[in-house]
């Protein structure tokens, strides 16, 4: 197994609304690193890449994609992967991640993180594709568990077993989205604490903390709300199990002022400082 990347500390998803506050700040902001949405920077030029260049001069960066469609039965999109690799060469991220999902088949992109049944067939299919992607990119990638609203009758195992087995077979890292564990736990009535307990410690390189919305009889992973108390409680359990793991607040919609996200990030920091030793909390920087 490839050695885990170092603990980066506490970060934020980089959003264009916050560029000026981040880059023009008089004093150092309490942000240890940024996660960029890969697709937003897979462009020819202009402001996105200019901003990325300025951010990466000052902060460690990781890349997080939404369109790898690693669980799709459509052929791997090699043109997409080539552009992803080009961006990685440019951005020099600490790691690259995407979701354990499919986004479309037959040339269509539904722009959603769609679930798959947890079967041996799917395990072989997805693990094989992750290996191919890692070979192409020449690096280990991290795969994120998604929120889901349905399960499949044909599933042969639990989600946590499937996720753990994928990581083992593909020899990849995991990005554990704590909100997604909570949302899926509520939606499918499983014990989210047990999910956390079943994931292999040595594979998890990053935590996502995010907010969700309530629909009719369902929680929806909208990333447009603050992180709720229950997700912070689950984060605490995750820290106890996994130790120091690079943690970030992921907000994609209804974007608040940076200060509000820093408050949320500070809450994560405080929770971590109550569980981890100062030595454990030292970042690679």
């Amino acid at each position: 197994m490839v050695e885990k990347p170092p603990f980066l500390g506490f970060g934020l998803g980089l959003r264009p609304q916050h560029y000026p506050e981040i880059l023009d700040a008089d004093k150092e902001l309490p942000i240890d690193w940024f996660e960029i949405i890969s697709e937003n920077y897979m462009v020819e030029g202009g402001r996105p890449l200019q901003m990325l260049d300025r951010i990466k001069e000052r902060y460690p960066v990781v890349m997080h994609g939404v369109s790898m469609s690693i669980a799709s039965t459509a052929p791997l999109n090699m043109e997409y992967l080539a552009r992803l690799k080009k961006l990685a060469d440019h951005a020099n991220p600490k790691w690259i991640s995407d979701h354990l999902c499919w986004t479309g088949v037959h040339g269509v992109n539904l722009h959603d993180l769609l679930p798959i049944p947890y079967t041996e067939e799917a395990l072989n299919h997805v693990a094989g594709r992750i290996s191919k992607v890692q070979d192409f990119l020449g690096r280990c990638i991290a795969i994120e568990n998604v929120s889901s609203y349905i399960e499949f009758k044909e599933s042969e195992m639990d989600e946590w077993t499937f996720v753990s087995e994928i990581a083992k077979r593909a020899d990849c890292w995991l990005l554990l989205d704590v909100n997604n564990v909570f949302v899926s736990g509520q939606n499918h009535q499983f014990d989210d604490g047990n999910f956390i307990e079943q994931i292999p410690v040595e594979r998890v390189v990053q935590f996502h903390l995010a907010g969700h919305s309530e629909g009719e009889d369902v929680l929806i992973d909208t990333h447009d709300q603050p992180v709720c108390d229950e997700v912070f409680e689950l984060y605490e359990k995750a820290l106890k199990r996994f130790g120091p793991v690079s943690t970030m607040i992921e907000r994609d919609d209804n974007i608040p002022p940076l200060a509000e996200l820093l408050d949320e990030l500070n809450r994560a920091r405080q929770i971590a400082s109550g569980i981890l030793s100062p030595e454990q909390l030292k970042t690679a920087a």
Partner: protein
Amino acid sequence: MAKNLVELQSQMQSDILKRESGVLKRFSVPKHTTAEKRFAVYQDAYQIRLVEVLSEDYEVTWKYLGDEQFYQLAVEYIKTHPSDQTNMRWFGRHFPEFLTQSPLSSDHPVLTEIASIEKALDDAFDAADGDTATMEDLAAIPPEVISDLTFKLHPTCRLLRQKTNALDIYMALVNEQTPDPLESFDETKYTLVWRSDMMCQYRALDAEEGMLVDLMLEGKDFALMCEMAATMQDADSAASRVAGHITNWLQSQMISQLIFAK
């Protein structure tokens, strides 16, 4: 090949796109809800997300049309143009062209032209970076080759050739003002869109400048540009007018390269 997964994903995608329910029997959900309700989260999200993208990318077209008509057109576009892009940023790239075929466009011929301005601005935003030629570069050109001088436009430049007062309507709507009534013209109205210092810019060009930019795009040289300018306005001052335009273009970072035989 994961045969079962292939078949499942095809059916699930089809049911999301067509809002059908054949795949429901394969889902398992808790007793307090139904597979139909849960699957609707995915079905709803597809349309909501793409309507939102179109309304962000074509915000002024939306303002011009109003909520109801824009929504109808957006839904129709989504049906006829399923996304094939890994980034939603390009999902709406066919929207201006789609509007030319919409029955609504015969009532509002300006629609396509407003949407084209918005698309050109979006395209200029993250178009490839390029060199920018300067006045110093121009000054360094030997006088004896100036008539053969040609120009490479900056890669962010887009020249729109329109037949209505779309730009005036666009500007009024951006500035929260009531737009003038629609006007159609026989002659071409030129609008140039480009990026300078990372900011998207646009401006109307008069007929002469529009023609000169067209000639630049065709790779025609300074001498021909002056010749053509002489046919548009006063012939004696044609060369100085063209020189004035070139100065303005250089200062606006619209020119990437001045090309001449060394």
